[in-house]
Each structure stands twice: as C-alpha cells, then as structure tokens.
C-alpha cells in the first residue's frame, strides 16, 4: 500500500515489536521449559536455579518410567475411544440440528431455536445433572462422558450459519431428482461446508480430549479412566509413588519431579504438534461464530 512511516511511527513500530517479543517469550517459554526439564537428569534439575535454555544432561529415563506406567496407556486408549465415538455422535446430531434450523420455512423452527438457545443461559445446575446421569444408568460407563456432551450449542449455531450460506437452489434441484433430506445433508450440504465441518470436528475433538470433570464425578473404575484423569493423579494429586517404587524417599522426590514434566509432554505435545497444521481452520471457525455475533 506504499505506506511511508514517519519518524514517530518508526519508533512506535520498534517498541511494539520489542514489547510483543517479550510477551511472546512469556507465553511460549513455559512450554519450552517443560520440554527441557523432561529431558534433564533429575539430580541436576533439583540443584538448578532459575530458567533453562538446554536440558541439564540428556536422558530419556523419565520418559521410560512414564511409559512403563500402565495407567498412561489405559488413559490414552479410553480417551481415543471417547474422542472417536463422541465426535461421531456430535457430528451426527449437530448436523441434524443445524440442517433443520437452516431450512427456509420449516415449521416450529423458531420454537426449536428458542429451546436450544435458552440452554446457553440457564441450566439446572450440577447436582440435578449428576443425579440424572446416575438415574439413566450411565454411571461408571464411558457413555457418561459421551452422551451428556452430544451437542455443543455454540457449535450447532456455527454450523447452522455455515449451512445457511449454501444456495438453496442447489438443494431444490436435488429434491427434484428425488433426494431426501438425509441425502441432501450428507451429499450436498456437508461436503459444501467442509471447512466449517472440519472446524467443528476439531472443536469437539479437543473438547473431549481435554475434558476431565465429568470423568471425575462419573468414573470410578480405573480401567475406564480417560487420560486427563490419569494426569490429574500424577500432576495434581501428586501420586507418582506407583511409578517410582524402590529407592529412598529423596530419590523418589527427585525422580518424580522430572516424571511430571515428561508426563505433561506426553499428554500435550501430540495436540501441539498437530495444531500448527490445523490452526487456520480453528481461526476460521471463530470468525464464522463472530460473524453471527
């Protein structure tokens, strides 16, 4: 655009960049620090003060210890099951709702919209929800983590906005050719809104991956623990004893420090490594939501 900066603006740009660089350091460094400690030798990490630029020594020991813990494997397995089944259900129901609400001239559309939007502002609260899930017999099953989260209202509204952008004439001509609503949805509407569908899949996927609270109130059987619940035991409740059996107390304390960092890496980096590739979709999703707002 042929912008020419005045002297004041140049100074401003300089400070702005310096400030954002400092900010970026504060935001990104904690993640970098975790990575560095996870490769460090426990002993040297204990003795170290302040920030780190490279690992202290280099060892995979703490990773080996973490991976030997069977709970991590169990947690990963359960979380993957929840993500796959959960997202499939999410996508089916969300697309049904969004399709219905995006049709011009469907009967009762306004009422259905109100029923859905009202739940964004008022809920019965934690306890009635808990008692209901127990009553339904979902307690201590993976379904208790899947069914109650079958639809995210915000995602439904994003999808509806996307569906409304598809020219109706396309569907009308499909209807002429004898296509039913299910066919129109799967063959025409969904493929045409693929970017949004991708966003919604990612949102739901990340949501299931990170969710832990429902699991802590509904899941008692340790074989059904999702990953986040296993992480909570290790990181928050501080239960690394099962992994560091043997040795004296001081040793255990030291090893358990680096174990925690390796656990964080193992649990977080799959998503963070995937994320730069998915970033543009995520951002697009927020923008669609913003247009609606």
């Amino acid at each position, binding site marked *: 655009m042929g912008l020419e900066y005045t002297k004041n603006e140049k100074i401003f740009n300089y400070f702005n960049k310096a400030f954002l660089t400092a900010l970026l350091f504060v935001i990104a460094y904690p993640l970098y620090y975790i990575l560095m400690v996870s490769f460090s030798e426990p002993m040297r990490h204990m003795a170290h003060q302040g920030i780190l630029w490279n690992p202290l020594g280099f060892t995979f020991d703490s990773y080996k210890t973490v991976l030997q813990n069977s709970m991590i494997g169990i947690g990963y397995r359960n979380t993957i099951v929840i993500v796959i089944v959960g997202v499939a259900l999410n996508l089916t*129901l969300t697309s049904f709702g969004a399709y219905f609400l995006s049709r011009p001239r469907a009967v009762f559309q306004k009422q259905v919209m109100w029923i859905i939007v009202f739940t964004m502002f008022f809920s019965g*609260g934690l306890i009635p929800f808990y*008692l209901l899930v127990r009553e339904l017999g979902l307690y201590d099953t993976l379904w208790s983590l899947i069914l109650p989260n079958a639809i995210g209202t915000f995602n439904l509204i994003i999808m509806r906005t996307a569906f409304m952008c598809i020219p109706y004439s396309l569907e009308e001509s499909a209807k002429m050719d004898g296509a039913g609503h299910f066919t129109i949805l799967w063959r025409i509407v969904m493929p045409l809104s693929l970017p949004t569908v991708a966003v919604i899949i990612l949102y739901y996927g990340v949501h299931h991956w990170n969710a*832990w609270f429902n699991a802590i109130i509904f899941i008692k059987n340790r074989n059904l623990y999702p990953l986040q619940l296993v*992480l909570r035991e290790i990181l928050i409740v501080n239960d690394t004893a099962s992994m560091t059996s043997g040795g004296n107390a001081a040793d255990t304390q030291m090893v358990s420090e680096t174990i925690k960092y390796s656990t964080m890496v193992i649990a977080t980096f799959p998503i963070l490594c995937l994320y730069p590739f998915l970033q543009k979709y995520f951002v697009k999703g927020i923008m669609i939501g913003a247009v609606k707002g």
Partner: protein
Amino acid sequence: MTMDMNTRTEKRGISLGSRAKHTWTLIKNEKSLYIMIIPVLLYYIIFCYIPMGGAIISFKHFSPAQGLWNSPWVGFQWFEEFFRSPYFARTFTNTLRISLATILFGFPAPILFALLINELHGTKFKRIVQTLSYMPHFVSLVVTCGMVIEFTRYNGVITQVLGIFGFPQKTMLQEPNLFMPVYVISGIWQEVGWGSIIYLSALVGIDQQLYEAARIDGAGRIRQTINITLPCLLPTIIIMLILRIGGLMNVGFEKIILLYNDAVMSKADVISSYVYRKGLLEANWSYSTAVGLFNGLINCILLISANTITRKFADTKLW
C-alpha cells in the same frame, strides 16, 4: 389420529383448525426433516431441561431412597440455611472478587493484544506471534494447573525468577492472598492469544480508507487507534462484555478445584466449588442444588440487566 385432531381444533374456529391442518400437512410432506430434529430435541430435553426441572429438589428434602416425587417439601429451608451459614459470605465474596479481577484484567488483555498485533502490518513476525500465542489454549486444564503448581512451588521456576527481585521463596499456592493473582495471571496466559482472534477478525473488517483519510489529516497512530479502531471494535467489545457479565458468577470452578488446597480455602472457595463439595463429596443433594440455583439466578439477572443497559445506552445488544 388426524381425524381426532381436526374435530378438536374445529371447535375453536375454522381458521385455527385449517392452520393446524396446514401445519400437519407441511410436516407430513417433509417427514424426514422432522425425524432429524427428534434426536436433537431429545438430547436437549433429557440433558438440559430435565435437570432444570430437577432443580426443584432445592425446595424439597431429597433422598434417593424416596425419589424425586415422594421427598417432602421444605420451602426455602435450604436457601435460608445457606444465607445463614458462614460459607455464604465467604463463597459469595470470593466468587465476586475472583470474577471481577478476571474481568478487570482478563477482559482487556486480548483487546490490547489484538491492537498491538494489528499494528504489525502483514509481516512474518505477525504470523509467528499469532501461532505461538494461541498454543496455550490447547493445553488441557489439568496440565495447565499441573504446570502452575510446579512453577509456583517454593523451588519452582517462577518463584525462583521472582526471587531475583526480592520475592519471598514460598510456595505461592499456600498463600491465601496469592491465590487470586495466580488464578488470574495463569488464565490470561492461557487465553490471551486465543481471545484476541475475535477482535482481530473485527479489525480486518475496518475500511482501510478511514485510516488513509486520517493520515492525510495528520492523525498519528494513537489518534487513529482512539478515533477509528476503538469505535469500530466497540460493538464486538460490548457483546463480549455482556456475555462475560452474564457469566459473572460462573467462575471457572474446574480450575479452582484443581488449584486449591486447605491452606488457601478461605480465599479460593467459590460458590460453584462449594456446590461441588457439598453435593458430590458430602451428598447434601438438596442443599447444594439450592446453592447452585441461587448462583444461576444471579447470572440470569446480571445477563438481562447488562443487555438492557447496553441496549439503552450503546444501541448494541445480544437480543
């Protein structure tokens, strides 16, 4: 069945009857469309509306053995009990304090961040800033809290770095007065980048000619920001603020439950974490439902008032 319906509606007048009939034919003609919405409605009824109805146990003495219907009514007993208990003042002030601090610091942070990023005109640096600053959003809450606990321990990296400036080398999450700052700052760390996206997308929509005209008139960067950028952002800011105020009493209790401990309970316990403890850990079903309902009602009132006020004065509204 249709016959039955027709005779009944006909009594109320021809127009109503024919309208109902018309509606029914519309539904019948597009049966599959209405079959689609059934599971969706079932989900909302079962998992959202039944619990809303279930909130009625806050006026009863509920015990699972007697069930919802046979448990005796007790009126406002549980509400009174809550208002009289010492926990009321404690959880209520903590909720307000933590929430207001989150709004005061956490709400403007992404706006300022977006404004600064916006000043980097289409550089590679801009992309790097965005990519890196969104990352913490994808770190799960459990891991984030694990990090916070580790870093703010007496020998944690944050405590050590602050020690250079004379900060006492104590475990921060054992100090009641430090709970809120740790909660708010870690929240900003996690969401500042992600929260800025919505403002950045609003900034993209501003007509560049406005800036060019302002430059010709001799307006500097700061003037342009105050007179062009901020007014254009205002509708987005107001909508986000209404939503935020409507959730004022919904402090992120999942995070509080992960971070708090006995030492900081007096400053960390909020209404929703209290509901969790009373209801799910101590099984005081009716009492905790009443506390939760009280919280939900305040939220509703706040949301409606915020919306009314902005509708009156700023002509921006959520509905």
